[in-house]
């Protein structure tokens, strides 16, 4: 049953990318494609990040063991969308001016924080192969717990960018509290038992 699911999910996860690619090629992202791409890829990164975080609670709560096998793939899609997010910022907002890019990473706290989150996603991405899991042993799990930090940084990054209406950050922030709160509660419970 699992076999057909994985390719289907893979194709579904590619849809936002293909949609943006087609729109970009048709020059249909509006007058400011830089902004449109930044927003869209940023949001898809958050969605996939939270989807990755939702897998373990779903498996434990509803006993859907199969979805655990999707976790790596969805995690890698998070990294994929974050990469497009970063590159489109470098290309369209800063026109690949490397000095400006370096300056922005240092001077602008929301960018520093977003980039820190990206570094985490990057290190989780490159250590996601089976051989790396074997090689890192117990440290693999420790390293991959950094996803919690990355998700908090991502929310701060979002909150810092919003100018006047924080509705979006409230929605994503609530989701994050649920996803992280679930883990804290579970840990406390297991200690009590």
């Amino acid at each position, binding site marked *: 049953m699992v076999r057909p699911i994985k390719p289907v999910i893979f194709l579904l996860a590619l849809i936002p990318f293909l949609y943006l690619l087609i729109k970009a090629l048709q020059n249909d992202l*509006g*007058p*400011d*494609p830089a902004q449109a791409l930044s927003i869209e890829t940023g949001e898809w990164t958050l969605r996939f990040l939270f989807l990755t975080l939702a897998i373990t609670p779903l498996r434990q709560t509803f006993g859907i063991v199969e979805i655990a096998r999707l976790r790596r793939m969805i995690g890698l899609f998070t990294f994929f969308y974050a990469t497009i997010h970063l590159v489109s910022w470098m290309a369209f*907002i800063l*026109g690949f001016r490397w000095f*400006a890019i370096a300056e922005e990473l240092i001077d*602008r706290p929301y960018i520093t924080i977003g980039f820190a989150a990206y570094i985490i996603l990057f290190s989780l991405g490159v250590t996601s192969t089976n051989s790396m899991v074997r090689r890192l042993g117990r440290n693999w799990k420790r390293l991959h717990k950094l996803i919690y930090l990355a998700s908090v940084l991502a929310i701060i990054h979002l909150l810092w960018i919003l*100018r*006047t209406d924080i509705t979006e950050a409230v929605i994503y922030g609530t989701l994050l509290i649920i996803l992280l709160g679930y883990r804290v509660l579970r840990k406390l419970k297991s200690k009590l038992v």
Partner: protein
Amino acid sequence: MLIKKPSDIKPSEITPEAMYRNRREFIKDGTNFLAGSVGIGSSLTSLAQDGDALKARAPAAMRRSPPASWWAEKFSSIKPAPDSEPNFTGESLTPYEDVTIYNNFYEFGMNKADPATRSGEFKTEPWTVEITGEVAKPGKYDLENILKPVDLEERIYRLRCVEAWSMVIPWIGFPLADLIKQFEPTSKAKFVEFETIVDSDSMPGINSRFAIVSWPYREGLRIDEATNPLTFMAVGLYGSYLPAQNGAPMRLVVPWKYGFKSIKSIVKINFRETQPNTTWNDLQANEYGFYANVNPEVHHPRWRQDMERRLPQTLLSRRVIETRMFNGYGEHVAHMYDGMDLASYY
């Protein structure tokens, strides 16, 4: 401070070929016309009435119908933009479709397309403007009466948003100074304060639960800035009436300042002795100053200000260009800030 002198810029750099061609054709047509039996005076009038002389017109299918008949009459004679700076720039225009879909007007919503798509209920007729404070003639005026004594003209200005994007827009309007003198400000009028309409029935962004702006939107200028010849009140763009998303029926255009200074849909103008509070300055004083002059040397905490995306961008033509001091209008406005530290008065 880096102010590029106009002489540094080659004419070929600023006047696109298409515009040269248009002008040649226009001159040719004009010559044919003059060769006929019609006198010079009437020929010019009729050209202006047809709008042929305007540098830019909205695409025929997108032209708006007049909000009321007096608008059509007012728009029947518009002085075309000149051929030289500062009231004209030969840089290629941002297309009408882009100017009217990509807007910041939070009263209609946070997304750039919200003002265009969520302003269907917005009414600009009738429209009154309340004049208060240090003037000899305060009162509530119908917009029609305010516009009666002014002559409409076309101006092609760069618009630089604090978010680091920019456009080139052909406005229709008149110098703010022409409006101000109607109300006879007193010697105490040192600042001018403007307010945008608040109508929660037709402006859905006002009702957003987590919006942290307190309406109405407020902006202000020093009196010398307000009466600078470049400071413009726009009632149209691309030869047509202003759409709601661009600040109908009347909005400010201050081309050397960041876009948020150019307040939209004005219902109140107050003349005062002290510097007024302004919306963005109240919200985040460290990010948005009262002066908000375009300044590539002073970065905003969110956006670096020494470059800008000239819209429309595409994947192939990224058009990330250098931002100029005072948005390139320094020659005409820098003198107002002599002796001021523009890093502290950002």
